């Protein structure tokens, strides 16, 4: 696969504890893939490897065709990330936060401001650009982080449990929004979650449990007539 996201035979250990075992999956360009796994499945470890916060010698990761170990900067340039923990500077305004991020990607001046405006507009928070992020609710902070992740026009967007701590309405709004971004703009999305109601039938589903991929394929095909929640619990063996 030349574009999109490709993970091939990736393993990772924290000392003696193996967190990921021979993980392989592909996400085609413009596809929304949900990485579904219970807490401790290895999702955050995988995200750390995908974002090069740490590296492994076992396996390879390609982002938009760029190998993460051989051409990490090109790969990072093509990737937008929304981390599980909040990474906004609460004392700065939305615009200041986004300008800082744009500069980290080499964007400044008018071009940066144009991209920030269009990104905020896409997430419907442009009119609040001058407000301090401390004054935003959880849902709007997440929107700000998604807007920020899109400034440099990445082709792959990674989101690590982006709805953690949000109320039901905000959760649905963010989930719908990112699905729309994927459909309308051809973004390749990898969305890690442990909540089955965030996965649509049209999504590609990757089930991760105890560091292994247990199933992957179109969500509708995998679950068949079984509700996704039940399918997930059965597959992971969590169900009583």
């Amino acid at each position, binding site marked *: 696969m030349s574009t999109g996201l490709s993970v091939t035979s990736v393993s990772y250990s*924290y000392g003696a504890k193996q967190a990921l075992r021979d993980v392989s999956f592909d996400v085609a360009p413009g596809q929304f893939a949900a990485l579904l796994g219970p807490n401790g499945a290895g999702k*955050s*470890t995988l995200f*750390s490897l995908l*974002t*090069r*916060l*740490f*590296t492994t010698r076992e396996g390879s990761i390609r982002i938009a065709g760029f190998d993460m170990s051989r051409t*990490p*900067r*090109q790969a*990072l*340039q093509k*990737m937008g*990330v929304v*981390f*599980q*923990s*909040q*990474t*906004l*500077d609460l*004392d*700065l305004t939305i615009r*200041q936060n986004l*300008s*800082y*991020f744009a*500069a*980290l*990607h*080499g*964007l*400044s001046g008018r071009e940066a401001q144009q991209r920030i405006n269009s990104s905020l507009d896409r997430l419907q928070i442009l009119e609040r650009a001058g407000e301090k992020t401390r004054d935003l609710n959880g849902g709007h902070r997440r929107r700000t982080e998604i807007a920020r992740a899109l400034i440099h026009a990445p082709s792959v967007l990674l989101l690590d449990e982006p709805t953690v701590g949000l109320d039901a309405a905000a959760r649905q709004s963010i989930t719908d929004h990112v699905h729309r971004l994927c459909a309308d703009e051809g973004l390749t999305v990898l969305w890690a979650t442990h909540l089955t109601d965030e996965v649509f039938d049209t999504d590609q589903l990757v089930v991760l449990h105890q560091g292994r991929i247990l199933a992957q394929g179109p969500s509708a095909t995998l679950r068949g007539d079984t509700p996704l929640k039940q399918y997930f619990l059965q597959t992971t063996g969590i169900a009583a």
Partner: protein
Amino acid sequence: MTAYLTALRAIVLREALRFVHQRERFVAALVRPLVWLLVFAAGFRAALGLSILPPYQTYITYETYIVPGLCGMILLFNGMQSSLSLVYDRETGSMRLLLTAPLPRGWLLFCKLLGSTMISILQVYAFLLIAALFDITMEPLGYLAALPALLISGLMLGTLGLALSSFIKQLENFAGVMNFVIFPMFFLSSALYPLWKMAESSALLRDICAANPFTHAVELIRFALYTQFNGWALLWTLLATVLFMALALWGYDPARGLINRKG
């Protein structure tokens, strides 16, 4: 190259904005050296006699002697403070944001270091201004000559903080840094007493002080404040900077995975 400079400007600006939002921290950072200068030094003035030693050309008061050491103290505490904030950033996630930028990790860490060092230098000048108001002055040109010395010393202590931050697992462990790094570094140096005074008590302690890079940072600043150049101090400070930076780069190497290390 433009991308590098754009990132540098943004990271330094962010440090400056943080500083503007944390003015209490600025005041607090000034209180510590001022207490040493105006209370401790005044009390010890009679107890500690100082002979003429370079770069001084005449007898000086104890308050005058400890000013460069207290400049170093500001840089030292701020270096450690920034290491504390790096550990905090690592736990909260904003360090992740920085490190996933498509630029070499060494450059990103250097930018962060430069930003916090520049804030420290501002604090040093505020301290020197207050000292001057109390009639403790240096040579007029010395204030300018001290700038590069403060920058190099600040970078050295900042890289030490950066290296430490990669090895500190959790915020709670920071108290250990205070006990095992800041205090020995400060007291085993020429900041409060000249090395020949220390030699009178113990040759071993004197040798430890002479090997302490903080001693050389203080001497570099001391000489610069009197528009003199101390090549040995510069060399020692630069060597320590390179060593600490190498340690920091090793500590933040993605292959070691420390950024996500669980405590």
